C-alpha cells in the first residue's frame, strides 16, 4: 500500500474526504490550516445546516406522535405480545392520557401535548418506525449522537463540520446548548473523539444565570480593555508578528496564525451579538418561553441565521423526559417544548431559512406502552425506555413535510413497517447535506471511520 505524502493529502482535502484524516494522521509537524474553511459536499443539496432539538430522556411516542387506539382498548391488560426486555420491569398496557387529533392539511395526528406544533404538521415528517439497540440512556444517547453504543466515536455535529467546514468563520461551526450536563455521558455526546479537536461542539450552558453572552463564551471579551485600547494592542501585535514573519521567509503557518488573529478580532463583536437573545424583542422572547429550552431555541435561531453549521439544543440537563413513574409529567415539559419548537419553526420559515435547514426533533429512544411497575417508582403511572420503536420528527432542508413514515405495531412496542435505525437516520441526515455517508470518512487507528459505522441506508421515501 502506497502512503501519500502529507502535503499531497492536504492538497486533496478540498476534494476528497477521508484524505484529511490520513493527512493529519501522517504528521503533526505542521498544523492543519483553516480546518473550518467551507467545503463543498459530495453532491448539491438543499440543507446547509442542521439543528437537533433534542428532547433528551426519552419522550413517549405513544403519548405524542404515534397514536395507539389499541392501548385504550386493552388498558390494564397484559401486553398480548409480551413485554420485551427493557431497563426495568413493566406491567400491563397503559392507555395514553392524552387525546390525539388530526392536525394541519395533512391530518397527521398529534396529541394534545403539542397544540402549537400540531398547527405546523404540514412542514413536518414524522418517522414512526425509529429503532435503536439498547434500553439504557448512555448507549442510546451515544448511538443517537455519535453513531455507536459505546464511547469513542465523533458526534454527528463533528462529522458535519469536518465535512462542510463553517459558513461563518467568526462563529463556532457546531454549537451545543444545554443548561448542564445531559445524562452521565456529558461532553462525549458532542465530542470529536479522534477527529481534530476543532470539530468538537462548543458547549454553551444556556441557563438563566448566564444570559449575558460574555458569560456564555469563554474569553470572548477583555474585561479590562476598552475596544479602543484593544485595537491599539492588536495593531502592535500585528506589527510585531509581521516583522517576525518577514524574518522567517513568509512561513505559511505563521501567516495562518496571523489570519486567525484577525478573525478572532472580528469574532469578538459577531459572537457577542449572535448569542445575545436580549437583542430580541420582549414579544419574541415571550413566544419562545422563559425557560432554558425556549431560550436555547431562540439562541439556535440566531446562530443559524448567522450561518452556524450545526446546533443542538438539549431540552434540559440530566434526563429531562425520563418519566418512569408518572407520564403526566410529560405535560409540564411539553408546555415549554411545544411553545419553543413552534416559535422556532415559524421564525425559521418566515425568514426563509427552513428550506435550507434540516430540523430534527426527538429523543434517544421512546417509551414502553406498558406501565413501569418496578419498586423504584413512587407511582406506577409512567413508562420505561423503549429502544424497539419510537418517533422522530424531521422538517425543512429537503424533507417531505406533512407525511408519516413507517409504523410501529398496534401497541407501539416495535417498529414494524419501513424500519429506520439510527444509522439510517444518520445516513439520511448526511444525504440531505449532500454526503454519501459511506464516503465521509476519517482515517484513524489504521482504518477509515464514518458516522454510520458499517451500516446505514438513506430513507429515500421522506426526501422531498
Amino acid at each position: 500500500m502506497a502512503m501519500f505524502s502529507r502535503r499531497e493529502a492536504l492538497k486533496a482535502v478540498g476534494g476528497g474526504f477521508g484524505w484529511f484524516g490520513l493527512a493529519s494522521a501522517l504528521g503533526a509537524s505542521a498544523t492543519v490550516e483553516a480546518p473550518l474553511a467551507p467545503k463543498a459536499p459530495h453532491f448539491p443539496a438543499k440543507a446547509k445546516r442542521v439543528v437537533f432539538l433534542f428532547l433528551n430522556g426519552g419522550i413517549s411516542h405513544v403519548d405524542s406522535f404515534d397514536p395507539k387506539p389499541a392501548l385504550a382498548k386493552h388498558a390494564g391488560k397484559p401486553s398480548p405480545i409480551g413485554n420485551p426486555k427493557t431497563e426495568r420491569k413493566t406491567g400491563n398496557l397503559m392507555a395514553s392520557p392524552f387525546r390525539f387529533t388530526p392536525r394541519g392539511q395533512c391530518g397527521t395526528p398529534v396529541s394534545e401535548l403539542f397544540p402549537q406544533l400540531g398547527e405546523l404538521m404540514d412542514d413536518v415528517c414524522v418517522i414512526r418506525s425509529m429503532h435503536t439497540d439498547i434500553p439504557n440512556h448512555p448507549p442510546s444517547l451515544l448511538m443517537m449522537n455519535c453513531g455507536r453504543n459505546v464511547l469513542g466515536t465523533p458526534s454527528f455535529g463533528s462529522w458535519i463540520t469536518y465535512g462542510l467546514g463553517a459558513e461563518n468563520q467568526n462563529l463556532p461551526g457546531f454549537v451545543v446548548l444545554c443548561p448542564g450536563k445531559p445524562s452521565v455521558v456529558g461532553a462525549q455526546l458532542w465530542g470529536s473523539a479522534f477527529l481534530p479537536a476543532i470539530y468538537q461542539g462548543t458547549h454553551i450552558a444556556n441557563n438563566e444565570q448566564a444570559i449575558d453572552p460574555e458569560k456564555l463564551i469563554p474569553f470572548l471579551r477583555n474585561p479590562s480593555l476598552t475596544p479602543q485600547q484593544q485595537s491599539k494592542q492588536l495593531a502592535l501585535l500585528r506589527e510585531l508578528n509581521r516583522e517576525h514573519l518577514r524574518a522567517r521567509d513568509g512561513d505559511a503557518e505563521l501567516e495562518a496564525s496571523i489570519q486567525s488573529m484577525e478573525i478572532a478580532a472580528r469574532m469578538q463583536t459577531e459572537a457577542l451579538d449572535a448569542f445575545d437573545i436580549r437583542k430580541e424583542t420582549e414579544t419574541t422572547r415571550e413566544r419562545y418561553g422563559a425557560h432554558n429550552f425556549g431560550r436555547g431555541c431562540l439562541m439556535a435561531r440566531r446562530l443559524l441565521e448567522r450561518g452556524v453549521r450545526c446546533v443542538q439544543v438539549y431540552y434540559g440537563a440530566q434526563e429531562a423526559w425520563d418519566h418512569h413513574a408518572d407520564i403526566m409529567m410529560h405535560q409540564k415539559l411539553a408546555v415549554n417544548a411545544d411553545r419553543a419548537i413552534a416559535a422556532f419553526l415559524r421564525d425559521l420559515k418566515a425568514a426563509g431559512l427552513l428550506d435550507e435547514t434540516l430540523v430534527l426533533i426527538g429523543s434517544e429512544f421512546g417509551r414502553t406502552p406498558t406501565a413501569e411497575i418496578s419498586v423504584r417508582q413512587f407511582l406506577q403511572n409512567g413508562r420505561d425506555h423503549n429502544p424497539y420503536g419510537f418517533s422522530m420528527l424531521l422538517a425543512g432542508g429537503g424533507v417531505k413535510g406533512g407525511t408519516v413514515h413507517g409504523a410501529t405495531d398496534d401497541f407501539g412496542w416495535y417498529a414494524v413497517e419501513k424500519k429506520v435505525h439510527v444509522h439510517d437516520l444518520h445516513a439520511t441526515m448526511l444525504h440531505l447535506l449532500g454526503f454519501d455517508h459511506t464516503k465521509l470518512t476519517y482515517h484513524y487507528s489504521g482504518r477509515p471511520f464514518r458516522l454510520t459505522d458499517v451500516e446505514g441506508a438513506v430513507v429515500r421515501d421522506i426526501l422531498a
Partner: protein
Amino acid sequence: MCLGASDPGARFEAGVRPLLAKNCYACHTATKLGGLRVDSREALLQGGNSGPAIVPGDPDRSLLVQAIRHTHASLRMPPSGRLGDAQVQQVEAWIREGAVWPGASAGRSNPDTFWSFQPVQRPQPPPVKDAAWPRSAIDRFILAKLEQRRLSPVPEAERRVWIRRVSFDLTGLPPTPEEAAAFAADHSADAYEKVVDRLLASPRYGERWARHWLDVARYSDDVLFGEAPNFYFYRDWVIEAFNEDMPYDLFAKAHFAADLLPGVDNRKLLPALTMFVDAPTEFTDDDRVDVATRGFLGLTVQCAQCHDHKYDPIPTRDYYSLLGIFRSTRYREVPLAGPEAVDKYRAHKKAVEEREREIRDFLATESRQLAEIFAASSARYLMAAWRVLGPAKETVEASAAASKLDRELLERWILYLRSPAKQHPFLREWESLLAEGAPEARMREASEAFQTLTLQVFREHRAVEEYNNVLKYGAKTGRELGDVVGKTMPRELYMLWQELAADGNPRASDAVPDAREDGVLNFRGDKVLRFLPAAWSEHVAGMRARLAGLKKAAPPPYPYLSIIEDAPEAVDLRVFVRGNSQNLGEKAPRGFLSILKDIAPEPFTKGSGRLQLAEAIANPRNPLTARVIVNRVWAHHFGQGLVRTPSNFGQTGDRPAHPELLDYLAARFMDEGWSLKRMHREIVLSATYRAGAKFSPEAYAADPDNRLHWRYPRRRLDAEALRDSLLFVAGSLSEQRGGAPAPLDDATNDRRTIYGKISRNILDPMLTLFDFPNPNQHAEQRIPTTVPLQRLFLLNSPLIMRQGAALAERVAREEGPDPERRIRRAYQLLFQRPPWDSELHKGLDYVAPGNLWSQYAQALLASNEFLYGD
C-alpha cells in the same frame, strides 16, 4: 489506499470490505465454514464446498450474491438475517465492476516479511561524503539519505535558537536570559553537552516528558461517571520514573505487573498499575487492550474485536487472549497508611454516619406522626378555612384562635385550597360548595368526608410503602431493584397523599419545571420541633452536639492507590463472534499475540497472566516495543516520527522514512539499558537536531514534508508549554512538585500544567483550545490546529492578563523606571535576545501615553515569536 475517489477500489474499502468483515468474517476466515473464506479475492474465486463464490462482472451468477439476496435455494446468508437492500446492492455493484480488491496481492501484512515484525537489526551508520557535518551516528543516517537525493541540510541554528529549542523540548520551558547568555559565552568543547546534561538533570524534565506519556496512557483525574481522588499518584510516579531515568523495560513491565515482578521494590512500582484503573469507566476492558497494544506495541489490536484484523496478522482469538488477562483481574485499593490509621478512619466514618442517621430518623419519625395527627383533624382545619374563605370572612388569626388550631397550618391549608393546580378531584365538591355559599352543615359534611378519605389514603400509602421497603431492603443495587415489582396506588389517591404529606422539591429543574412545596401537613426537619415538648428539642440538640464533637475528632482520610490485581479465578474467554458477548466462538486461552509467538509461545497460566504479558512486551527480542518508544521520543523532538503513525506500526500505518536509523536507535536504546535520557542526549546533540529552521526552496521541492530532515521544523508550543512558559517568564511559576490536582482555570493555580486537573467529563477550556487530546482514549499524537478561539484566549483570558501584569511588574522591579531597560529585559526573558531598534521604538511609543505596561507585556506574550519555536 484511496478513500476519497469514486473508483471501485474506494467503494470496496468504504462499503464492501467492512460489510464482509462485519457479517461474514466470523465464520469465513480462518474457520472456513463450508470451506469458504471471504477475506481475499482469490479465496472468493476459489470458493467453498458449493463452488466459486463470485463471478467477477456477473452478480446474478455469483453464489455470494444469491446467498445474500436470499434467492438461492439453500444458501441464505448471513444467518442472523438478511442484509439491507442497500448493502446487497453494494455487493452487486462491486462484483459487476469486476470485484476489485485493492492491494489484492499484498492483502494482510505478511508476518514473515512485514518490516515491523522483523527482528531489530544493528545497522552500521552509512558512509557520507560530507564527513564534517555529522556529529553522531544519527547524522550519518540522515545525511546519507539527503546526499542520495542531492540535498544538503540548511545551516546550523544559532546558539540562541538551539538553547531555546532544547530547553522547550526537554523541560517545556524557555531558558532564562542568564542561561542563554552563559551558553553564548561558553566556548569550551562541551558547551552543548553541559546544557543538555543540566536540562536532563532538572526535575522539570520529568514534568515535561511524563506528560507525553500521559497522552499515551489517556491519563485523567476522574472517571466518566465520578471523581477519583488518587489517580495523581500515577501521574507523580510517571514523573519520578522519567526523572530517575527508570529503564523503559521496567517502566513498561510495571504497568502490567508491578506487584508481581521479581527482584524489585514492588511497593515503589505499584502506582503504575493505576493506569488500567484510570479509564473512562470501570467496565472498559476493551479500552485496556487498546491502551496496552497501541500504547506499548504500536498495534491496532482492537480492530480484531469483531473479526480477524483486516490488514495485520492478528486473529480475533488474539484479542480475546489479551482481554482474558484483564478479565482475570479485579480492582483493589492499597492504603498508603498503616492498618491502625485505616481502621481508625473507617470506624470513625461509620460512627459519624450512624449518628447522622440517628438524628435524621428521629426527626423523620416525629414529622410523619405529626402529619398523621394533623390528617386526623383535617375536617376541623377545613371548617376553619371555610370561616376565612366563606361568607364569615374571618381573619386567619381569629379563625385559628377560635378553633384552637395552629395558625401556620391553617395558613397552609388556605393556600392549598386556593391553589388551582391540584392533581386530584377530591376537594372539588368542597370547593363548589364553598363557591355556591353552602350552609355550615353541608360544609361540615364535605369536610368530614374528605378527612375520612384522607385517613384512608394515608393508611394505604403507609401499607404500600412498607411493602415496597421490604422489597427494596432485599435487593442490593439500583439495577436489581429495577426488576423488582412493587405496589402502587391509583394516581389520584397518590397525588392526594403527595400534596398533603410528601417532602417538597425545593428547586425546579429542567425535568421538573415546577418547584413543589412540602405537603400541607409536612413539617420536616427542625420544623417539627415546634410541635413537640421541650424534652424532644433537648434530645435533638444533644445528639447534634455529640455528632459535632465526633466530627471534630475526625482522623484524616488516608491516601490509597487504586490498582488492579489478580482475581482469585483466572478465566479464558471464548471469542465473541462479531463482538457479541452472547455469541461465543472458539476458545481464546490467555496468551500473547500469535504474530509474536516465538517470544511467548505458551498460553499464560500464571494467575491472570499479567507477569507473562509484561515480560513478553519488554522482551528484547520483541521487535516492536523499543521501536515504538524511540519513535515516540523522536516524534516529540522533531514534530513527526520516523514512523508518522506512532501507535500504528501495522499495514495501514506509515513506513519508516529511515528504517535503518530507527533500528539503530532501537538497538542502541536496548543496549544502553533502555535509558531514555541517553536517547535524548544522543538525539539533541546531533547535527540533525542543531539544524536551523530556514526554508530551502530546492529541498522543499524535493521533500515538502521534511521527512529527510533537511531542516528543523518550526512548531507552536503545546498547551502545557504555553501555559507554563507564560507563568515562567512572568516570574509566577510555582516550583511545587507533585500532589493533588487543582483546576487550571483557578486564578491562584500557578503550578505547572501537568499538575492541573484533567477531567474526562469537562476538559479545561484552555487545554481543549490548544489541542489537548481526549483523555477518554489513547492518543497516538496531538493534531495541532490554528483557530481564532486560541487567539481570543491570548487576547482576553484571565490567565494572560494576570501574566501580562505580572511580567510588567517583574521588569519594573528588576530594571527600575527606565522604560528602555524594561523593554530590553522583557525581550531577554521572552526571546533571549535584545529588541531590534524598531521593536524598541514601537514598545516605547506604545507604553508612553498611559504607562500601558501590562497591555504591552500581554502583547509580547501573545506574539508569534513567543508562541512558535524555531
